[in-house]
């Protein structure tokens, strides 16, 4: 009944088969969408935000599923691995407990059993004016992300100026993955490449990242643990179901026997892309000064708008609360 839900469906069984198909479809200029767990995609189709002619399920690509950990603690997590699988993996929890914690806070148990880590890295940005039905979007004027000419969040925005769209970045996993120095393995019929997660996402709610049209995220790779201890905390009014109104990952790593050698911060939920900073103790007169600088950088980054359950001023204020609390959890009272 809904136009977005009428599409051809196919399910290739290998990357090779997928590659051949993508090459064909690209050459023909065909309209398609790739689907993994589809927990982000299906609501968009139902709302008519996208109405592809063809859905290509990645579900048959078993080679994209699973968690491999080598003797040095390097991890390769297949992009199609479900969040439930990751949250339940005891080896991964021993190595990277913050990743387990962040993944376990995504949505709800039924969704985590379908949703994939690749999908969470690539999850679409959200805005209270775009994640709406056709009728609601007709009640307002179509915004940039809906192909229109206005932004209801930044009324002065004009086409062509970046960021074009202030839709929020809402991945719970990415802040932790950033602090784990994650790399993404991207595959297309043209070949395979490896990019750092840092810098992969763009400062724009529409053109959100570096993934090419015919590219597939096949794996998230984590280097051997660097000794960075990581804390992830999420602001949401409920303990499950909700996207982060703010998510803060904080990492503390010793350098040259200084437990406060490096402070890393990554934010989600508060801007168009993840915020990410690293501060070296050596550059500051004190650990407290380093922490102050981390707070200041995060607050400056957060161009927060009223497009969430919580008002913008509150979310901005919570950045500092969340960073300082995480710092206390990781470093105790020794920050002074």
């Amino acid at each position, binding site marked *: 009944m809904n136009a977005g839900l009428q599409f051809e469906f196919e399910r290739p069984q290998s990357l090779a088969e997928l590659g051949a198909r993508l090459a064909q479809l690209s050459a023909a200029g065909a309209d398609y969408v790739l689907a993994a767990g589809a927990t982000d995609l299906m609501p968009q189709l139902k709302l008519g935000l996208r109405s592809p002619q063809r859905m290509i399920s990645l579900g048959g690509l078993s080679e994209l599923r699973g968690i491999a950990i080598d003797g040095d603690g390097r991890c390769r997590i297949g992009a199609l691995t479900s969040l439930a699988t990751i949250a339940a993996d005891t080896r991964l929890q021993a190595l990277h407990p913050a990743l387990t914690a962040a993944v376990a806070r995504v949505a709800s148990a039924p969704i985590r059993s379908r949703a994939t880590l690749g999908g969470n890295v690539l999850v679409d940005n959200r805005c209270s*004016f775009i994640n709406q039905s056709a009728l609601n979007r007709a009640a307002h004027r179509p915004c940039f992300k809906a192909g229109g000419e206005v932004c209801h969040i930044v009324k002065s925005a004009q086409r062509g100026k970046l960021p074009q769209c202030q839709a929020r970045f809402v991945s719970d996993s990415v802040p932790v993955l950033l602090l784990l120095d994650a790399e993404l393995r991207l595959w297309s019929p043209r070949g395979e490449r490896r990019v750092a997660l840092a810098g992969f996402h763009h400062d724009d709610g529409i053109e959100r990242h570096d993934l090419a049209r015919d590219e597939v995220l096949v794996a998230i790779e984590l280097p051997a643990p660097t000794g960075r201890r990581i804390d992830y905390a999420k602001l949401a009014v409920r303990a499950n179901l909700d996207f982060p109104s703010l998510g803060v990952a904080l990492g503390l790593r010793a350098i040259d026997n200084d437990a406060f050698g490096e402070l890393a911060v990554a934010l989600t939920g508060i801007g168009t892309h993840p915020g990410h900073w690293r501060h070296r103790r050596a550059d500051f007169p004190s650990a407290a000064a380093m922490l102050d600088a981390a707070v200041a950088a995060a607050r400056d980054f957060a161009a927060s708008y009223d497009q969430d359950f919580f008002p913008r001023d509150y979310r901005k204020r919570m950045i500092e609360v969340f960073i300082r609390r995480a710092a206390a959890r990781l470093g105790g009272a020794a920050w002074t």
Partner: protein
Amino acid sequence: MKPYRIVGQPQAQIDARDKVTGRARYADDLRLPNALHALILRSPHASARILGIDTTRAAALPGVRAVLTGADFERTFGVLPISKDEPALARERVRYVGEPVAAVAAENAEIAAQALALIAIEYEPTPPVLDARHALKPTDDPLHPELKRGDNLHKQVEQRFGDPDAAFAAAPIVIEKRFRYAAVTHAFTEPHAVQVEIDGRGNLTVYSATQVPHYVHLALAEVLGLDEHRVRVVKPHLGGGFGGKSDPFPHEMIAAKLALVSGRNVRLRFSREDVFFSHHGRHPTELTMKLGFDPAQGITALTGDILIDGGAYGSFGVVTTYYNGVLLQGPYPVPNFAFRCRRLYTNKPMCGAMRGHGGVNPRFASEVLMDMALTEAGLDPCQARIDLLHRENTLTVNEFRITSVGLKRGLEEAMRRSGWREKYGKLPFGRGIGVACGFFISGSALPIHWNERPGSTVRMTLEFDGAITVYSGASDIGQGSDTVLAMMAAEVLGVELDQVKVVAADTRLTPVDLGSYSSRVTFMAGNAARNAAIRMRRLLVAGACRKLGLSEPEYPQPQPPADFFRQGQRAPDFEADYLGANPDYRDGFELSGGRIRHLASGADIAWLDAVHAAIEGPGILQTVGNYRAPKLGGKFKGAGAGLSPSYSFTAFIVEVTVDPETGHVRVDKATCAHDCGFALNPLAVRGQIEGCFHMGMGQALMEEVVHEGGAVQNAGFLEYKIPSPFEEPEIDIVLSDGEDNEGPFGAKEAGEGPLAPVIPAIANAIFDAVGVRLQELPMRPDRVLAALRKAGAR
């Protein structure tokens, strides 16, 4: 303990297994042969004139069988006869985003969707009125020109009793505060759905997810211009209502009209967003309340000035306007009392009745003010509330008849179990405990449509095989009313629960019952069922006597108990049917274990043999029971609002943890004392109380329908924040062991009353935790934090 086998025992609902195994059929699960799919085209404008509608292309689409616009309906409708202001499809103007403007019925949903897209509507948008304050302003273009007013006021109610001004002047403590409330909605599980079956003679059977089959029946006949006997309304299993399904709706009129036009069966179902458009939720409210308090006397005066934002149409709004004031007449005496409540029309989905109808929002204000007064007076807020509760068998200043009040004992027990005395004022900063009380009607004594018929009638049959069938027009909306009716029949007739079948909410098969609203079913349909069962028992005993060669017992003329409370000199009508809150049936027989035993002689007979003896003459045993409320109330204008044969009383004690840096409030524990008289099914009562708590906690802390330019921006359960199970605390429930003289077996309501005190109890606990008073709902973390910062800055 009372000598009951079935009532008073926790019973799983009789349809529980069907529901959890998926066997239960809801309105959209039915499969009528060859049904057309209906879809509704809705307005994208909050306020606009309709300059033209062109349906020719839609009607010409192959597979389309009927297309309707506002021109196809002559009459508007509404649940209250005094505000029949809603069209099935908008005519001339649209009044909210989502209002139905046109509808189609087609061979399948895809064709129907294509047809909708082919309907061309020319709108001329007009400036919308989006809040109640704006709606008070003079305008030459009101939402409802037919009222011939120069503004958007829908209803204004003012009442005054005693001399509040003098009482305030004399009161040692006077507190006045302003409170604000967001819109909240019912969020029932099952979206609205309706299916219409049409027969070869043009008669309609309408299967609808409704709390009020009788009112839907009447409205359908009137709007469609059909004789009432041509319409039959059936309520299948229903997935929650909470007041959101207690009106006749446009979609019911539309589906029925489509069936009449096409001559085909029609199916229509709502999306979750459609439910938010339909709404009928709690009114966004702004109010100022003033409390006068004297530690020696209690409340000396209470006044309120209340503004409620009704949305585009009337619904139950006139009742809501009264309830916002009159339901402040409990749970404590208020000797001097005045209020003004105004309901405004705005360009938003309409508000209506929602669980705790009209009594929830003012209760937040009155119980916060009460807490402030008790704190200022240096009294213990819990003990003082117990001391101040209404006395039994008294009249309020607006002449509500207060009969049973069982809360005193219950709240004393809740106080003990919650550790109140050890905790109140003694917990560390950030942790707190708070209490609040409330009361609610056990059914409205007056019908919506004035007539002299009983409000509830139950028919009961008993056949040769021992099958007992209860025919009741009451709607089980998930609260378990079918179960409670079956329990009473089984109790009285001495059989097990599974021998009783309930046929309910089918306006062709079941006698008129006004419906499931205002917490009336257990009290009113329950009394009718109990009386039908007692009459059936007499037929059965007569059969047993015949077989056993005994003479039939002589039944004494029923007498009300010695402490029965007559209001003024009025004779209560129900005395004719009165059989007591604690009936001993007065027949000298025991019915149990498949036997009927004469207690005096010890002679006994198989239960089924007695049936066979009794049935020889009539071929079937059949009885009828009724309930009609006693004549109640004063003689002033608006005296009927809030009249009930009985009132429930509730208190909640709530413990919270408040994070002073984030403002986040976590409810750690709730202890409830509820006076529902005799708990017929304690399991269901507990379920209702837990549900009330969850709903109250949602309104207290996070729920809010957000509008932008009139459009609902969070029409789904991701962004409309209902608390998840993770937010639900342990809930300890104390049920009063009292009984009400007039309730069936002594029962009163339990489905709505427990909600209202939840919200102020949380607010009062926040005050105990961190010393700030919140006066706006929801008490979101940012508001708690802002209040803390403001307090810190002082």
